[in-house]
């Protein structure tokens, strides 16, 4: 799952493969904006059938956090 999320981030933030690490704080990238957020939540919804409630998303700092959230949502 983390690999798929990394792929999403590379595409959305227009980064080279391997450039983004799963422990990076994705909000630190200057390309991160509201359109990036919309792209990300729709990709996650499509791929994993999970929508992340916006208040919950605020507390997710890294791609690892997002992966954990998705796993927990799918498990519940």
């Amino acid at each position, binding site marked *: 799952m983390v690999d798929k999320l990394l792929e999403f981030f590379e595409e959305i933030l227009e980064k080279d493969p391997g450039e983004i690490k799963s422990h990076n704080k994705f909000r630190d990238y200057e390309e991160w904006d*509201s*359109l990036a*957020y*919309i792209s990300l*939540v*729709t990709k996650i*919804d*499509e791929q994993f059938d999970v*929508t*992340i*409630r*916006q*208040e919950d*998303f605020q507390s997710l700092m890294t791609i690892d956090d997002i992966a954990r959230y998705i796993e927990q949502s799918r498990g519940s």
Partner: protein
Amino acid sequence: MASTSFNHVGIKSISVAVPARIYNNYTDSDFFDADEARKIVDSTGIRQRRVADENICASDLAFAAAQKAFSETGVSRGSIDFLIFVSQTPDYKMPPTANILQDRLGLPGSCAAFDVNLGCSGFVYGLNLAYSLALQPKINKVMLINAETRTRAYSFKDRQTGFLFGDAASALIIEKGIDYGPSWFLMDSDGSRHDYIMIRSGGYRHPSTPESLMERTLQDGSVRSDEQASMNGLGVFEFVITQAPVHIRKILDISGLSENDIDWFVLHQANLAMNSYLIKKLRLDPRKVPSNLDRFGNTSSVSIPLTISTELRDRVKPDARIIISGFGVGLSIGSALISLNKLHISELVEV
């Protein structure tokens, strides 16, 4: 989900009025420069919208739409037993705008007139109410009006909302009839997110003060007062892409119909990204999902009848089945599958 179903009741006519004044989102902003405006417009898909002059209120647009409905259908004013006025930009806090219209339209004193305070889901909720009332044995016809001067509620200097909204009104005549096919409605609320779209001050919780009227500059450079609406656009986006597909699939399920049986899917015109994603997620044929967002923007509860009026007037077949879905402030969502029977759609009226 609150779920209702009806038979032998339907929409006789749809008439819509908009202000004649066209506001060009690319060029008409005094606050955002051309580059910024272009960026915002390209992401929302709203190139222009209709903006009412200062002296035009929601009831003025509603009056024009309703007059058109009476003149084109030949329905007598005396046959209207209920007048429902759905709006969040009424002429006054009190009295209800419905009563002002009852008088101005020449409807009899026997007509029960009342307002409903709902936004983008309000067409579906209003239609559900109108169908319920029209089926009563002693009721002849119901007029459902949705009317908004939504551009007054938001700051034109707000990056989140200043380019989205347009003004419009629709008037529908609802009646019983053996030839009207079945319809199904679903409605849900999420009050835990009531602050996602909100005018914080100017009501009775936080009354109007000189401070609440004062414009403030926000972190993103937007400027608005506490008496202008704020929106958590990303939160609303997440709500809609989660809830709307569930509604539409559920409606198909309870009606026993498939996507192929539906002629049109008319979604609330919120913004391009949202509706494009709903089409993708539900795997809808984009040709069956009409849009006028680029020319009229988000007209709140009027957007569904406005889209039917401008996009389907010459294309809808007499017995078409349409799925409609409206979602927004509340938060609130309503969807329905409606069966048409020779629906009359008026030409757009400009005020």
